[in-house]
């Protein structure tokens, strides 16, 4: 039997199964589609340093089947019935999803459970698929924005594994064995680490029944080297690096600040608002000043990425190399202003409305809802996801001023500059 966890406002329902697995379910009777999105707390931060890249490589190997399902069989089960499937790995999670017609769920859900719980990781497939991952790594090196962002992450996270590339490196991947991957799988792919989000045209009783039946046959946990991420000491200076890249047409200015993780979710949301204020839309401060008025950049963006242990606040611009210093100084001034001058109510209202509408616009489809619940449940709890609009609406200028002073600074940040060779 499963135990009910959920409170009132939450439109979905969370269940904890006896084995410790969490199911989040939302019934959308009008849609013929069902999305099953399985989130595993086994991203790159779970890897010991020497195993860097293991979580992502395992995500590939999951699709190589089990003793019952030969490589490729799972893909055919889903796609030949008109469904879609894919997966992704980040620092905090790996997740695997299918979108399928409701009537096919009795065939597609068991197949998804089978590959996740019973991954065989055959040695010959391991060697072959590693070539694919090496190609994936090679492809990222041809993308200057990825190269720059990775260098920036390594610079700002010198201790925490958020600084390591999720894909790992060729040399480290070549040292790993199928046996080690099986240990990693059996250690982390356990019910207490897993959230199954099911959204769409399926009633709760049926969803529970399917999940209880097929997400039950877990192997006993294997032992595996584990890793507890170290907290990153705060930045005390401007940490600057400059890379010269071939084939680069425009310079890049990439600046980053660390911000609180999920345990201070409200602070994180406040910084999300400040990021919009700085560089989302033509009326935002930096786009207006740098793209429209002074015309110093080709483009400028600001992003707030919520992560479990430590979030990242970034500002990145593409520009002519001759404007690098001036633009960096202007961004610094904009940060100072956030620390000293309370936001005009009108600006705050614009950012609040924009983020609340973004939330509404990005929770239309079942796959968006399932992804949001699964993600939040992996780094905190699913119910928190839906508090976002209310939280955003409740910010006042004073609190944001305080957050800017606490987490942003024109004197303490990491900056990576890319210049053409």
């Amino acid at each position: 039997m499963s135990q009910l966890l959920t409170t009132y406002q939450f439109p979905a329902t969370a269940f904890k199964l006896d084995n410790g697995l969490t199911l989040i379910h939302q019934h959308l009777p009008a849609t013929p589609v069902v999305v099953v999105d399985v989130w595993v707390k086994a991203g790159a931060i779970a890897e010991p340093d020497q195993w860097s890249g293991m979580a992502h490589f395992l995500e590939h190997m999951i699709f190589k089947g089990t003793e019952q399902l030969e490589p490729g069989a799972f893909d055919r089960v889903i796609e030949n019935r008109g469904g879609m499937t894919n997966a992704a790995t980040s620092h905090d999670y790996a997740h695997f999803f299918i979108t399928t017609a409701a009537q096919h769920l009795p065939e597609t859900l068991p197949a998804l459970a089978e590959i996740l719980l019973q991954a065989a990781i055959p040695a010959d497939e391991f060697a072959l698929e590693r070539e694919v991952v090496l190609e994936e790594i090679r492809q990222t090196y041809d993308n200057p924005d990825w190269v720059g962002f990775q260098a920036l992450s390594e610079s700002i996270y010198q201790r925490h594994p958020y600084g390591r590339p999720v894909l790992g490196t060729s040399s480290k991947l070549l040292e790993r064995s199928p046996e080690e991957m099986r240990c990693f799988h059996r250690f982390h792919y356990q019910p207490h680490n897993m959230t199954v989000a099911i959204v769409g045209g399926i009633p709760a009783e049926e969803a529970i029944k399917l999940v209880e039946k097929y997400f039950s046959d877990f192997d006993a946990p294997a032992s595996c080297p584990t890793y507890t991420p170290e907290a990153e000491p705060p930045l005390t200076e401007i940490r600057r690096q400059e890379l010269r890249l071939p084939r680069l047409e425009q310079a890049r200015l990439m600046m980053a600040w660390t911000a609180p993780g999920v345990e201070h979710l409200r602070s994180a949301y406040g910084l999300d608002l400040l990021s919009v204020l700085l560089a989302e839309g033509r009326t935002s401060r930096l786009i207006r000043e740098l793209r429209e008025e002074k015309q110093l950049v080709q483009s400028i963006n600001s992003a707030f990425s919520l992560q479990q242990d430590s979030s990242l606040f970034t500002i990145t611009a593409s520009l002519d190399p001759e404007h690098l210093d001036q633009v960096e100084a202007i961004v610094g001034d904009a940060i100072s202003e956030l620390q000293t001058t309370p936001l005009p109510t009108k600006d705050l209202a614009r950012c609040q409305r924009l983020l609340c509408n973004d939330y509404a616009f990005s929770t239309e489809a079942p796959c968006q809802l399932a992804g949001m619940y699964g993600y939040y449940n992996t780094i905190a709890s699913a119910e928190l996801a839906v508090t976002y609009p209310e939280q955003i609406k409740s910010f006042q200028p004073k609190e944001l001023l305080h957050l800017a002073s606490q987490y942003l600074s024109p004197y303490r940040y990491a900056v990576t500059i890319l210049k053409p060779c």
Partner: protein
Amino acid sequence: MQKKVHFSEPVPHIHRTVLANGLTVIAVENPAADIIAARIYIRAGSRWEPKGKAGLAHLLAAVITKGTEKLSAWEIAEKVESVGASLGTDAASDYFLLSIKTVSADFANILNLAGEILRSPTFPESEVELERRLAIQDIRSQQEQPFSIAFDRLRQAMYRDHPYSFSSLGTEETVANLNSAQLQEYHQTYFRPDNIIISLAGRIAPEDAVDAIAQVFGDWQVPPTPLSPLLLPAVLPQASWSAIPQATQQSIVMLGYLAASVQEEDYVKLKLLSTYLGNGLSSRLFVELREKRGLAYEVSAFYPTRLDASQFVVYMGTAPENTAIALEGLRAEVERLSIAPLDEEELQASKNKLLGQYALGKQTNSQLAQIFGWYEIIGLGIEFDHEFVSAVSAITTAEAQEAAIRCFVEPCVVLVGPETAIASLVSPTI
């Protein structure tokens, strides 16, 4: 044996009206969320750009939101952003598009703004200058991506004098010569009510949607002169070979075949073949070249829907030392479709995949507004939503093979990668 599957998608009721001035309205009521999405399509994509002015429609898209008779660039942005709406413009090959998305209560205001932008833009000289300079930077930035380098070359090789030979950005040379007067002229010629489709979906009754649109656009007079038909050079298949040396980690191998336009019989068959080859984890190229041989991370096929001759493209990124076998592998997989028919199981699986994903592509309001408006603007009509499904279901293995034989003659080949890896390769036929 593969079974036929059906998505019992509830068919949305599509309301279609033509206003007295010739403007077509398509409305789909979808009360699921408090959102309205609209797509305003105009027959003014880059296909209509005069020779030597590639990039004009794209520049127009960038500048049209930067000043009207009543509003400055700043005021326009403020009207949109202060209510958290989105309003975007884009120039595709076959149409020009203005997209809006709002919560329902803000829809009328933003639609009003869209009307002002489309009907009385002023193209201020200073904004033209800024956006032209940024467009040129964007063109240069495209060259940072090996895929873009390859695809640019492929387009030029296949389309030569036809406007499809350029990306919508245009080229540095053509964009440098564009000016405000040319934007005015292009706007005056093509932005007229009988050349526009407005398609929307969301929490609004169809009759209210039509009223709202009539209020903003109903008094827009059709100019007395009819639009003159567009005469474009015919495009003929012609094999070619390009090797572009770049200091990259991977080689990009790309093959393109001139392919049926959306009006031709072969269109749905080639859609099916492109699904078979390149769509999803169980697609033929993915299984044969990635899963079984480990040659690539990204390997795929695409066949865009086009008013004029389209292109059927297969490509992959691979380690430089694998360039030759990647090329051979891609080519063999494509040509295999001409040599032998698919078996029944492969055919049915591909149909299920194509139609299943087609149904999945109609979930959000934006997707609904997009697809019906698009069918209308490219002349297929909203009925095509059903016709497409029946046509795909009816394809036989023999018909698919015949379409393959007609399409996959001699490819245009493009290789991008380290000189040592690509220079020594030569086309077997050229």
